[in-house]
């Protein structure tokens, strides 16, 4: 089963019922899908109820690029940098999908992108960027402010 033919196709269905067909070599960039292929569960369409079509298309695009032998190192670097230039909603979807599908290189890059977005920002700016509600009590906030005062003067 694991000695796959290079033109074996894997079929995937996103949460919003879009279907995608990719070569097995592309699909197995995802450890999750690779395990399914190895276990012989990849003969029918694989449903992915927690990844929507837009995000799945992005992830598969990433996987395709990474198995393409004609792509140079420089081209790949540029592709990866442009790839992560996303709004926070898409970035969130991508992070969840990369984690669920376990596409290693992608997960690392997305985590780093989020870390980079946090760099140099105060808590209220981070909340604005990521649409996060401040659930600290005024007392808790004051405690945090006092602890952090030295770093943000």
């Amino acid at each position, binding site marked *: 089963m694991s000695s796959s033919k290079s033109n074996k196709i894997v079929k995937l269905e996103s949460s919003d019922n879009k279907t995608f067909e990719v070569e097995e070599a592309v699909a197995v960039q995802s450890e999750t899908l690779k395990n399914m292929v190895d276990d012989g569960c990849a003969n029918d369409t694989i449903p992915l109820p927690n990844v929507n079509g837009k995000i799945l298309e992005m992830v598969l695009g990433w996987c395709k690029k990474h198995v393409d032998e004609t792509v140079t190192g420089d081209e790949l670097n540029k592709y990866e940098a442009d790839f992560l230039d996303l709004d926070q909603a898409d970035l969130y979807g991508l992070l969840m999908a990369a984690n669920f599908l376990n596409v290693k290189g992608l997960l690392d890059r997305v985590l780093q992108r989020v870390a980079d977005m946090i760099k140099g920002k105060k808590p209220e700016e981070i909340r604005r960027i990521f649409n996060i509600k401040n659930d600290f009590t005024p007392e808790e906030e004051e405690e945090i402010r006092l602890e952090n005062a030295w770093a943000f*003067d």
Partner: protein
Amino acid sequence: MEEKGLSFAKSQREPSGINYGEIEINTNNVEVVTRPWSDLPADLLSLIADRLGIIELLSFHGVCKAWQAASSTASAKIETASNPEPWFLFYGEDSQCHLYNTSQRRYTMSIPELDGATCIASNQGWLLIFKEGSMFFYCPFSHAKIDLPKFPHSVLSEHASAFSSPPTSSECIVAVMHRDHESGLELYVLYRGADTWTRIKLDNIQYKLSAFGLATYKDEVFHFFDKKNGVVTFSIKDKSCLMYNIVKKDDSTTRKLNSTARKRLPTFVRINSLFVKSDMKKKLGLGEDVSVSICGTILEYGGIDNIIFSEDLEAAEESENHHLRGVWIQPRFFQVSSNQNWSL
């Protein structure tokens, strides 16, 4: 500066126009639930927190409760990975302390714990502090503190100390080399969970150490370096001390020594007078009437221990009051639970 602080405390709750877990209809008329970032699984939040430097980690803690909880084990270890140089913490003027990062950017902190205190060891973000007879571990960035059993001397003379692992480890051992006119040379060892220090008296003639440089720990052995070529080792396995002279490996005299008289030390570089060589006195704006004591640290870089010796700089002019202190420190944010103490 005052204003910025006030506006932080009074920050408004976010306007309700933003979606928090509500259904949003997108342009294709397909229902999409937008889940907020605070709902991100804790293990992913933790992976993000692990990639943050100390300043960013402090911000991360202040975003919301979920983010704060998920980052409880992140310690800003990445600071050392990206830049092995230590920060410098300058204290001794009441509680006001100045912190200098590797780009010489200055921060000011109020640290009451350091008022009247002396830092006697610094390693991987933990400081060992001696204050009026008490001894404790302290992380100045997070204010984490772990008290130790009382030290047998209420005043410290010459000292060099090291600890084997972070104080939160069940195997942490602390070793303090002490020398004064009355008691001579003594080695004090404290094991994790013990409530008293173990004292080992060392004969002054056999253990001929010059002015203390720094103490380190490696491969189950504590090393106490002086500023010349002397080193005393204490093995925690057989609990014995030995005195060595550091010599060049390929020296003709060395090669004549038989193998039992020689011992290979872990690869290290001794760095003396870093404070002076970095022109820190000028950068700190210190005058000639100020004396400074600096506690050194160990930087592990490329598999080699860079041992930054402690320094004692006398004032050019006689002055009783201006004795300031400094310590080379790696920035880390350690969080310990409130019931964390030295006992096991």
